[in-house]
């Protein structure tokens, strides 16, 4: 296992872009220490900002200390495990294709943005745009799974195309904005305008819900089998789903975009 310990003393952002488990797998710790990373507008050797120790060949990393100003951690990850024993900055897990990113603390904005595969689990809260499309992109998350045990900010799963995001806490505004497909489940309270401009996909609001947009039309009450199966899968992953009922009201929308999206609102049973 490779251990990277933060020695950062300020909030100037550091980018881990290009530093992945596979890219560094064959390198020894001293070589990694000499690798240049951007801090603000300058490039510095890793050793000036981090303590690096261990062997990366098993594709397992452990990041210790304050990484809240370190961005692009596990970005483009394709294999292996990255564990952050604390907070992590923006773009963590961005465009990752495989492997696992686990965060013990909070994550910044754009967690798992445009993710293609793999799994991200955050014990704390995340910022805005979790699993979302990056600026100017047509689609956001296209595969994989994100589980946030805390709350997420606004624009979660924006323009999602495939994949599964689960938020055990609360969710901000514009959840599932411009969704094309995929699933966003929110166990806590959800902010306003959920599913705005969604074309397809499923937005399951299993906690308190703000007023829905008038462009969503009630269809029926039912107990979707898929929801029960997904809750069972989450349970197998260690998520407590005991209080979550599977009886929901189905709304179709956004009618301004064809109305083929599903918005499931808990009936609390």
């Amino acid at each position, binding site marked *: 296992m490779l251990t990277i310990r933060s020695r950062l003393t300020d909030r100037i952002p550091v980018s881990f*872009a*290009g530093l992945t488990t596979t890219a560094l797998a064959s390198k020894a710790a001293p070589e990694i220490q000499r690798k240049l990373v951007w801090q603000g507008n300058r490039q510095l050797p890793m050793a000036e900002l981090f303590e690096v120790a261990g062997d990366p060949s098993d594709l397992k990393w452990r990041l210790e200390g304050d990484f809240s100003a370190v961005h692009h951690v596990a970005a483009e990850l394709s294999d292996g495990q990255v564990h952050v024993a604390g907070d992590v900055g923006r773009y963590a897990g961005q465009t990752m294709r495989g492997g696992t990113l686990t965060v013990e603390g909070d994550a910044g904005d754009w967690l798992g943005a445009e993710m293609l595969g793999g799994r991200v689990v955050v014990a704390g809260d995340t910022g805005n745009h979790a699993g979302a499309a*990056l*600026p*100017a*992109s*047509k689609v956001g998350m296209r595969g994989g799974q994100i589980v946030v045990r805390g709350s997420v900010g606004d624009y979660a799963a924006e323009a999602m195309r495939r994949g599964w995001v689960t938020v055990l806490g609360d969710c901000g505004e514009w959840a599932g904005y411009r969704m094309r497909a995929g699933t966003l489940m929110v166990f806590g309270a959800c902010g306003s305008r959920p599913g705005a401009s969604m074309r397809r996909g499923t937005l399951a609001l299993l906690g308190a819900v703000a007023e829905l947009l008038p462009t969503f039309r009630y269809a029926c009450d039912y107990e979707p089998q898929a929801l029960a199966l997904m809750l069972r899968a989450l349970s197998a992953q260690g998520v407590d789903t005991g209080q979550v009922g599977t009886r929901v009201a189905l709304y179709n929308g956004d009618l301004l975009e064809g109305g083929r999206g599903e918005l499931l609102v808990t009936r609390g049973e």
Partner: protein
Amino acid sequence: MASLTKIAGGTVYDPANRIDGDVSDVWFSGGKIVEPSADAKADRTIDASGLVVMPGGVDMHCHIAGPKVNVGRKLRADDRRRPGEALERSRLQNGGATRSGTFGSVPSTFVTAYKYAGLGYTAAFDAAVPPLGARQAHQELADTPTIDRGFYTLVGNNHYLMEQIAAGEPEQVEAYLAWLLTATKSYAPKLVNPGGVETWKQGGAGHSTGLDDVVPHFNVTPRSIIQGITAAANSLGLPHPVHIHCNQLGMPGNWQTTLATMESIDGLTGHLSHIQFHSYGGGEGEESSLDSRVTQLADYVNAHANLSVDVGQIMFGQTTSMTGDGPLGYYLRNIYGDRWYSADTEVEAGCGVMPIEYKNKNLMHALQWAIGLEWYLLVVDPWRVVMSTDHPNGGSFLAYPEVVRLLMDRTYRRDVLASCPAGVREKTVLADLDREYTLGEIAIITRAGPARLLGLKQKGHLGPGADADITLYTPSDNYAEMFQLPRMVFKAGVLLVENGEIRTATMGQTLHVDVEYDEDRLASLPDWFNQRYSIEFENFAIDAAEVAG
């Protein structure tokens, strides 16, 4: 006294001076090409034996500055996410530094300049800036160093001009045109979908804007706008009288409108831009019926020496469409459904910007690619056809070396054609064209020709008195490689680029015209202007101090 430099023993292509591959020396001093005295001794000699020597390239139709380009940069954030898509600041051997910037289909200003210089180009002209955007365009051009540059100002949907044309006041049209070019410090007038943009702004989609459709409220037609402004521009004796983006760009069957536009100019000097996009047969609104009508149009151009064209070659790949043709932007948005920007520039112009991807497996795109190449190969006189990709609309200017290879290497061209859908060979004559460009002809369509068409007497040639803008290439059988990486590039006698490395990054000036006109004729213009514009008349004109260089 300025030092004397000799580029010795190169194989020189200087078509304007009828030099076609002669081994000779080129001398320059004080930034100008000079004729050395019989006993002249060079202070510096550059051994160019085995190298090809040409004047610096001139791009007469591209989009590199102004509001739409900046919108394109914002819209294409996806172009430059990865570290490799950014240029870092670097120290230069000769002192100074290059500035940082970004690549992608719409590069930042500094990167645009460095990349042009890196290709051996020393001048480039943005082809569509609304008069209200002139100030921003000048500021961006000031940040586009290394090359000389300029822009054309949009006049084809200008309310004042349409009112004067409708009123039958040609002298008024002339005076206003002269004032506008001078006030905006631009180089030439540009017509974009004349009358059509205004019609769309008023009524939305569904209007044909053929040459004889009346523009609502103005009682003019595209034909009368083209004729009125072309006549005024010719009468003023502008170095590049008029640059025309015809009506109905991209529409199946638009070739007849293009032919009618050529005929309407009626013997006056006129340049038709990105002609590839205006050469389509087929039924109106039926994309599947699109075919090539280059043969008919090129025959007309070949028979009329007053006409010239630049091609607007499309190249396969991702790029960004940006145009003053607002309805075209709307049309493309409906086809591709991607993000789209549209703007109404007050009483002057429109604008449309959106991403686009040309795919070689797409019959329409492959047809457009082939139609562009047909233009190069069917216009007999290379002095009247100019290389352009309408950067970035058809593709990046960085694709010019690839276009050179397609023109000079028939086998390569046919290999690429074979990778396109079979329908391309049925709907075009490209497969039957054997012509291969020579290096001399390439020198014409990339530098000598556009310089002459722009009236740039000091550019595009290596005769005494010309700017010492010189490019040295290493010959190769792969012409794309040859033109991609010049051995050396000089601008006004200063070494800009050597083996792909920037050596100097501070040269360049903005070229524009100052035209005399009868001010009394425009006595009522300030009142007219202040009633319609969002800025005061007295704040409109660009001061000389605002122009770089």
